[in-house]
């Protein structure tokens, strides 16, 4: 069976053009927007007293095992929320609350190949055990390393904060926000929280980092998050990575789409492969001559 070179290249070009055309509409160029009904949390580290009432409340609200006599030291298969400390010279400089950030453009949702992760009602990112195949790509994809896997279980689950969606549905606040004695973490709509954070900065700019022009972590970081942070120290010291304004998913998409832009690279690759093939066949025909 023989197919001449001309016909092969023609076929490739047609397929490439089709792919290029179909890829264009999915290209995201502008910053992700919060859904209109988005809710979230605002954690003000300068108000936190480190009492860990939220850690216990989270365990109660989500029916997770463990107690504070044997306190967890990190997020895990049975800890969705944790308070950590940042020390300077042996003294606590700031506390830090860790849980899912509920990104506007979540990397976990993009990475999940079976659609177990979804950004659902109120913009909350949830995990569907019925779909999950346990590949843990979400763990690798998350820039904040939030999703945790129950390694010790025979039928393990992915565990992460779902903003107490089950409680929001019955008109209650998330467990941690209910429990906080100093209102260091509060629940509200995304727009309200953003306005609140800006108001706090306007009132007491000296309290927040960086001095001069305080920053709300999550306003733009990683494409923006529905959980917002205010702190008196560098967010990087509190374990929040410097992600830039672009989300990890958008960056990955850009790289992928860059490779396939105009389908030039694949066409070139196949052209080279085809040329090598053609040369080898010609050489074989010359020498072997079967």
């Amino acid at each position, binding site marked *: 069976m023989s197919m001449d070179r001309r016909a092969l290249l023609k076929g490739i070009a047609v397929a490439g053009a089709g792919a290029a055309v179909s890829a264009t509409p999915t290209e995201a160029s502008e910053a992700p927007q919060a859904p209109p009904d988005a809710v979230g949390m605002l954690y003000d580290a300068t108000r936190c007293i480190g009492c860990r009432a939220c850690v216990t409340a989270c365990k109660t609200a989500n029916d997770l095992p463990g107690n504070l006599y044997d306190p967890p*030291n990190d997020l895990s298969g049975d800890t969705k929320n944790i308070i950590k400390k940042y020390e300077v010279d042996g003294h606590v400089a700031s506390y830090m609350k860790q849980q899912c950030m509920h990104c506007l453009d979540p990397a976990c949702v993009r990475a999940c190949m079976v659609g177990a992760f979804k950004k659902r009602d109120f913009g909350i990112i949830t995990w569907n055990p019925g779909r999950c195949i346990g590949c843990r790509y979400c763990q690798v994809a998350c820039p904040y390393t939030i999703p945790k896997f129950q390694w010790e279980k025979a039928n393990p689950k992915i565990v992460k904060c779902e903003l107490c969606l089950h409680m929001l549905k019955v008109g209650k606040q998330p467990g941690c926000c209910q429990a906080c004695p100093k209102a260091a973490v509060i629940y509200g709509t995304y727009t309200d929280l953003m306005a609140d954070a800006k108001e706090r900065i306007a009132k007491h700019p000296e309290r927040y980092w960086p001095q001069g022009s305080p920053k709300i972590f999550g306003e733009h970081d990683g494409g923006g998050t529905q959980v917002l942070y205010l702190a008196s120290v560098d967010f990087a010291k509190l374990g929040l990575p410097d992600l830039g304004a672009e989300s990890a998913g958008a960056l990955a998409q850009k790289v992928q789409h860059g490779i396939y832009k105009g389908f030039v690279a694949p066409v070139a690759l196949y052209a080279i492969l085809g040329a090598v093939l053609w040369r080898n066949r010609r050489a074989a025909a010359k020498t072997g001559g079967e």
Partner: protein
Amino acid sequence: MGRMERPLRGVADPPADGVGRRDFLKVCMIAAATVGLPASVGRRWAEAAQAGLKPSVIWLHFQECTGCTESLLRTSHPDLGELILDLVSVDYHETLFAAAGYQIEEALHQAMEQHAGKFVCVVEGAIPTKDDGIYCQIAGRTAIDILQEVGSKAAAVIAIGSCASWGGIPSADPNPTGAVGAKDILTGTTVITIPGCPANPYNFLGTVLQFATMGTLPALDDKSRPLFAYGRTIHEHCPRRAHFDAGRFARQYGDEGHRLGYCLYALGCKGPETHANCSTNHFGEVPDCWPIGLGHPCFGCTEKGIAFHKPLHEAAVLPENAHPPIFPEHRRSASVPAVGAAGLVAGAVIGAGLMASKKIAVKDGEDER
């Protein structure tokens, strides 16, 4: 005067002029038990006191409110004021002495000479150091002078109350008199501190009686506080601890959580950073007679730099080990070299097994042939 129907003990009662042996023994045993010593020690205390081996005590007052003396005299157990006088021989005490002026000065010098090197010097109140210590003078001498003279001749120096221990109220900002504790004046000698505002009388009694009976001093922490009383924080033994762990806080005085007896941490309780036995040894042996028991946050009176220095509403620093760092270290079940070594061994075993099975297969083949 409806509230005065039941006269206060020790105030309205006629002064007791003696204590029965039985009562005396009982108090000694209670004193021993409250500081965690066996009843036999209480008996030994009583014997020592009755045999006239009472230690001489010289009690110095400086910048203070006399609250420590008052609380010592007003413990609810009957006649404790009398007993202190029977258990120890107080040879100089400005509050308790009827004498005054030259007479009492004479008593001080006599006691000091007579029991030199054997008496216990108790200091109550802070010592002002600013402007050569002129802000507290007795008989024309500064507190520094008096303490240095008496302290140098004492067998043991005990600072009772927060003022004498680390400065207390007089040392509160801006500390106009430069008030310091006895420890800062008597730098060369061991000063046992019994801080508290006021100090729990049993912590003091336990220390004095241990010295009187056994001639030893209790084990001390780095701030010279007896470990039997100040070894743990209030938070560790707080009756409201369960509320703390469950995240149930009183958020305002008089709110629902406060009425239900929830944790007072959010109101500024300093229990987590204050070392004292108040939570287990209530004042005057009256159950719940201590700040947290009465619904008020601990204000950290035994701790230097907290009471009278930190605002009452300011949240206490929780014990360091309670929070993980931002990037916690995760325990590995095995180290990298160990896993490597185990891998080598496992590989060798598998390899050996494969070779052995090959040989067996060859052998079998030979047999079949």
